[in-house]
């Protein structure tokens, strides 16, 4: 794994010195900060709309919002918008370097292709983890401020479950980005896998045993309706290893 540390260092500096530091963490923190406020104001907004044109006579009655609504807003953002942004962002992690010509310049030096790909995976997974931690802390702090109550354990569990699923997706995109020449192609395949996991999550055995069980798990953790997540977590870890190893194997054989 010669060159792994040097290349990982380059990846870290690249994240800090380019748009990448703002794209995912920026979006996550923005949604994390606004989520609890939106949860707090939603009933008031709907109530005020009941008197507007076309809504005459409609009476909207909503329960008083709680920390749980703020947390659900956070988990909804994670499992929908942020997951899709993640797929788009990670789709070009290797193909982008190939297209720009930087991969050729680097890979003709003493760094193995496996080290190159592993550094790509770890840096992207690290960026997602950083964004998730920052977002979780932000939404917890704002929830505490707005609602006066914000259970730490539930926030940690819901975020950790999503992060595990997100890392599976990063591994999937590591494989596709290594194999497919175009960023668009890798991203489309990534969306395909995401949709497949979402559909599979509706089928009991898949939800109980595979990474698909993590798709809706953050909401379930916050609502207190979640089942045991041991098998989805274990199979997610195994799937991550297999996707990354498959990517390393395919990339080592690929002509650049």
């Amino acid at each position, binding site marked *: 794994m*010669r*060159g792994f540390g*040097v*290349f990982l*260092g*380059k990846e870290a500096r*690249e994240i800090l*010195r*380019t748009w990448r530091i703002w794209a995912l963490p920026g979006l996550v923190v923005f949604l994390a900060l606004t989520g609890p406020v939106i949860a707090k104001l939603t009933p008031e907004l709907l109530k005020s709309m009941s008197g507007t044109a076309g809504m005459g006579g409609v009476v909207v009655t909503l329960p008083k919002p709680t920390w749980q609504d703020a947390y659900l807003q956070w988990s909804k953002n994670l499992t929908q918008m942020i997951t899709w942004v993640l797929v788009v962002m990670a789709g070009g992690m290797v193909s982008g*370097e190939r297209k*720009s*010509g*930087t*991969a*050729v*310049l*680097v*890979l*003709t*030096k*003493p*760094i*193995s292709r496996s080290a190159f790909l592993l550094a790509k995976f770890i840096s992207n997974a690290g960026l997602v983890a950083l964004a998730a931690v920052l977002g979780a802390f932000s939404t917890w702090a704002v929830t505490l401020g707005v609602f006066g109550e914000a259970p730490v354990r539930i926030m940690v569990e819901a975020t950790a479950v999503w992060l595990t699923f997100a890392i599976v997706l990063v591994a999937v995109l590591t494989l596709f980005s290594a194999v497919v020449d175009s960023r668009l192609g890798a991203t489309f395949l990534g969306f395909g896998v995401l949709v497949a996991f979402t559909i599979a999550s509706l089928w009991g055995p898949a939800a109980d045993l595979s990474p698909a069980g993590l798709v809706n798990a953050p909401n379930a953790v916050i609502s207190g309706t979640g089942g045991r997540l041991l098998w989805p977590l274990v199979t997610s870890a195994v799937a991550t290893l297999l996707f990354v190893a498959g990517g390393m194997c395919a990339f080592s054989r690929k*002509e*650049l």
Partner: protein
Amino acid sequence: MPRTCCTVRGMANDVSAHPIELTGLTKVYGSSKALDGIDLVVSEGSVYGFLGPNGAGKTTTLRILSGLARPTTGRARVLGVDVGAAGNDIRARIGFLPDVPGFYEWMTAEEFLRFAGRLFGLPAAVLDERVEALLDLAGLTGVTTKVGAYSRGMKQRLGVAQALINAPALLMLDEPTSALDPIGRKEVLDMIASLAGRTTVFFSTHILSDVERVCDTVAILDRGRVVVQAPVEELKNRYGARKVILEVTCGTEALSRRFSAESWVTAVACESRTLTLTVSDIEAARLAIPAAVVAEKAGLVRLEGGEVSLEEVFVGLVGGAQ
């Protein structure tokens, strides 16, 4: 010179072997044959020009040599090791510049050179020294703007500099001067010329004058085949010997008619009182030309073997086929 050997990743690495050896190298993409049985040997210390028109197979050859692509058949050896088995130990002794080098645009030249040097595992003191020297060589000392804002010439010079960061035993450059303006070309060629005798340089191009200027040996590639490989001077002499320049005091038209009828003359060019003959049999020419001058009472001023440019050699070897 005694032959010495060392072992790299379990393979015999003959350090006194030629830096590059290609034997029957072919590369097929679908139904298209990019390389068609290339045999080539590059001697240590030479600046070797790999010349050919666009699409001749130069970049494909360099991609195989640098480990980016695999040959379909045949053998490619770099620094004594088959490229298929060459690992980090061999790559550590090679410098490579692709035809369109891609840099991390958020880095400065110094940052990129340090990054490249660290990939080679250079100690900090050596790296400091090399980075300073190479920035100077590339004319980029004190340039603090990001690589993304560089001109094509600056990027190309940085490309050559990064390929030298490990003081390579073999430097491979793919079209390093293409798409550069005349000043940029001169700067890159000066950098390459300054390496002569210090490292083996294998340099692909389609620009004939670049080869004439910096290379001591050349291989001409056409449609995936090596048409000829030889030292530049030998090549020019070999083909130059077939050209004869004759200057007379008068009678050029009569001489031109007479020579055009000879079977050993393939072309006659007449300019003022000078005739340039392209001949197929130099011995016959040496005997017949003085006799013709006497017969036409032309008055001999000058009779000599003509200088030929590499361009004429190239066109003669490749142009006709196209």
